[in-house]
C-alpha cells in the first residue's frame, strides 16, 4: 500500500497518510480494545487495591455468566432473537430489493430509495420512539385494527418481544436492502428470462437463479443485521419490557449501574465472540469468503 501511495503522491504525503491511519488504528481502535480485554481478566478492585496483592489475571468475570441462569438465558435469547430479526429482515427486504433492482423503472426505484432513506435522517432514538407511539396500547395501530374489526380488544405489543422485533426489523432494514439490491442488480436480466423460458416458475427462478447469484449480498446483509441486532441497545430499551431484556442492557448495567467495568468488559467480549462465531457460521453456510462480502 505504501509503495502505491508513494508512487502516486510522493514520500511525504504517503508517510502522512500511512501515519495518520496507523495512529488512528492503533491509538483509537486497537489499544482501547486491548485495555478492555485486560480489564475483563482482572477483578473489580477499589482504586487503592489496583496493583496490590489482590490484582491479577483471572477468568472469574467470564465464569460469572455461566453461573447466572438469568444472564445466560438472556444471552441465548439475544442470540435467537437476533437470528430471528435477521431472518425477518431478510424476508421483508428480499422482495423489496428485487423490486428495486429488476422490476421498478429507474424513476420508481429512485423514489422508493429516497422514501426508504428519508426516515433515516432522523435520529434512531426518535424513530424508535415513534414506533413506541404507533404500537402503544391505545396507539394508532390498535385503533385501526379495532375499527377494522380484526381484533376485539387492544393488543399489548410492547409487552413481549413483538415491539422489539418490529423496531429492529425497521431500524436495520436498509442494512439488508442495500447489499441485496447491489447483488440482485448485477444479475443479467436474461438469466431470469432464460430460466422462465426453460419452463421455470417464479419461485424456482428465484431459488435457482436469483438467490444463488445474490448469495454474497444475502450473507453481507445477514451479518450486518445480526451484528446490529445483537449489539442493539436503544430498541430493546425503549420497545421492550422487563421480560424482553437484551444482553446489551445487562452489559450496560454492569458498566454504569453496577460500576463493575471488569465484569462489563467480560460480558461485552462474550457478545463479541458470539457475533464473530455467527459471522463465521454464515460465511461457511453461504460458502462466501471475506473478499465476496467486501465487494
Amino acid at each position, binding site marked *: 500500500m505504501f509503495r502505491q501511495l508513494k508512487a502516486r503522491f510522493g514520500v511525504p504525503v504517503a508517510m502522512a497518510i500511512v501515519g495518520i491511519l496507523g495512529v488512528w488504528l492503533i491509538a483509537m481502535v486497537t489499544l482501547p480494545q486491548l485495555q478492555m480485554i485486560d480489564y475483563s481478566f482482572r477483578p473489580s478492585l477499589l482504586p487503592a487495591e489496583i496493583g496490590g496483592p489482590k490484582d491479577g489475571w483471572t477468568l472469574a468475570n467470564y465464569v460469572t455468566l455461566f453461573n447466572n441462569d438469568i444472564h445466560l438465558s438472556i444471552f441465548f435469547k439475544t442470540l435467537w432473537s437476533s437470528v430471528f430479526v435477521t431472518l425477518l429482515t431478510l424476508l421483508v427486504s428480499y422482495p423489496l430489493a428485487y423490486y428495486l433492482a429488476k422490476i421498478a423503472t429507474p424513476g420508481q426505484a429512485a423514489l422508493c430509495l429516497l422514501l426508504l432513506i428519508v426516515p433515516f435522517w432522523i435520529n434512531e432514538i426518535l424513530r424508535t420512539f415513534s414506533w413506541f407511539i404507533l404500537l402503544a396500547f391505545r396507539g394508532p395501530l390498535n385503533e385501526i385494527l379495532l375499527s377494522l374489526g380484526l381484533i376485539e380488544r387492544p393488543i399489548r405489543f410492547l409487552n413481549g418481544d413483538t415491539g422489539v422485533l418490529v423496531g429492529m426489523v425497521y431500524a436495520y432494514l436498509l442494512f439488508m436492502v442495500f447489499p441485496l439490491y447491489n447483488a440482485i442488480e448485477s444479475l443479467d436480466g436474461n438469466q431470469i*428470462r*432464460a*430460466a422462465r*423460458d*426453460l*419452463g*421455470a*416458475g417464479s419461485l*424456482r427462478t428465484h431459488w*435457482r437463479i436469483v438467490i444463488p447469484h445474490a448469495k454474497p449480498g444475502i450473507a453481507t446483509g445477514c451479518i450486518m443485521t445480526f451484528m446490529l441486532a445483537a449489539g442493539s441497545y436503544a430498541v430493546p430499551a425503549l420497545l421492550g419490557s422487563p421480560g424482553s431484556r437484551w444482553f446489551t442492557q445487562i452489559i450496560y448495567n454492569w458498566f454504569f449501574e453496577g460500576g463493575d467495568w471488569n465484569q462489563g468488559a467480560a460480558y461485552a467480549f462474550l457478545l463479541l465472540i458470539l457475533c464473530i462465531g455467527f459471522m463465521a457460521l454464515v460465511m461457511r453456510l453461504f460458502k462466501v469468503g471475506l473478499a465476496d462480502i467486501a465487494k
Partner: protein
Amino acid sequence: MDGSVILDNVVMRFDDFTAIEPTSLEIRSGEFFSFLGPSGCGKTTLLNIISGFLSPTDGDVRIGNASMRGVPVNHRPTAMIFQNLALFPLMSVYQNIEFGLEVRGVDRATRRRKADELLELVALGGSGGKPVSALSGGQKQRVAIARALAVEPRVLLLDEPLSALDLKLRQHMRNELKAIQRKTGITFIYITHDQGEALAMSDRVAVMSAGRIQQVADPETLYHRPQTGFVATFVGENNRLAGRVIECRDGRATLDIPGLGRLSGRSGSELSPGRPAALFVRPESLSLSDAVGSAAASMLEAHIETVSFEGAWRMLEARLIATRETVRILVGQGAGDVLQPGQTARFGYDPDNAIVLADDGAPTHDAEMGETPRASSQPAQENRHVPSA
C-alpha cells in the same frame, strides 16, 4: 409435432410508439425462418411476442395452431437462445442443459442421458462436468443450443446468437446451426441484422423495416426480385437511380432519370407512367462498356474515385458525371487492373439485370441510415453476397 407459427394481425404499441404495425405471417413447421432488418426495426419485439416475454397490443400468435393468448413464457412450446446466451454461470454444463428437464420433473438418470445425447449432437461430448466459465465462445454457443433443445421445443427462437463470435467461427456455426435444424426438424426462427447470415441459413426471410414486414421470400428471390426499395438496398448492395416512369410494357419499365435520360430494367412492382420510381442496379451487374458491347446495354459515364482491392474482385466507387451521384461497381481482376482513380470510364448494364421499383416515399435502407442516396459508402458488409451467376 406441429411447429408452425402464425402471426395473426399482431400489433405492438408502447405508449404512442408503434413498434410493430399490423403484421400477419405464417411460418411453416420445420422451416428455418429469419427476420432480417436494421436495429430498431421491431424484429426483436416480434421474437419477444412469439416467446411470450411481451403480449401484443392486438392480434394473436398461434403455435401449432393453438392460440398463445394468455399462455405465459414458461408454458409455451418455444425455447430461446439469447444474444448473450444467458448460460447460468454458477452451474455446470450438465446443470445448464438439465435445467429445463429438472423443472419438468424428469428424473436424474433420464436427464443425464438426455444431456449426453444433446452434447453429442452439438459435438461437445464429455464436457458435461465442466463449469460454464471454462468454455470457449463457440463451446458456450453449443451449450446454449443444447440447453434450448433439451426442453424439446416445437419452435427454437434465436436472437442474433452468433454476433459475438469472430468471423471464422461465425461462418462455421452457421453451417452447424443449419445442420442441427435439419437433423432435429424443429422450426427455427432466427433474428439478425446480418444479411449474410440470413441469406446463407434460411429457407425464407422476412425483411423488416420500421415495424413493418417489407417482403417475405426465399433468399434467391429476395436478392433478385426485391419488391421494395428498402429490400433492394438492405439485402446486398445496390445502386439506386431515381426518376419517373415513362412506359411500362412486357415486364420491362423505362424511366426518365434527370441527367441520365431514359434507362430501363425489369419492372419489379406496380408501376404507372408519370409516377416516381427508381432503378436498382447491383454493383456486379454494372460493367465496363466494352465488356457489355450489346445494343441492349444502357450506358453511364462516370469518374472513378476509389478502387479497392477485395481479392477476386475490385470495388470501384465512381461519380456519375451527369448527376454527381456515387455508384459502386464490382469488377473482375482483369478489368480492374487497368482502372485508376481519376479516370473516366463508361459503364453499362443489361436491363434484364436491373429492376425498377415504385418510389412511394417509403424509406430505403440508406435513407434510414441517415445517408443521402449513394452519396457515401454502404456500412461495412463483410459477407457481401456475390451470386455465381
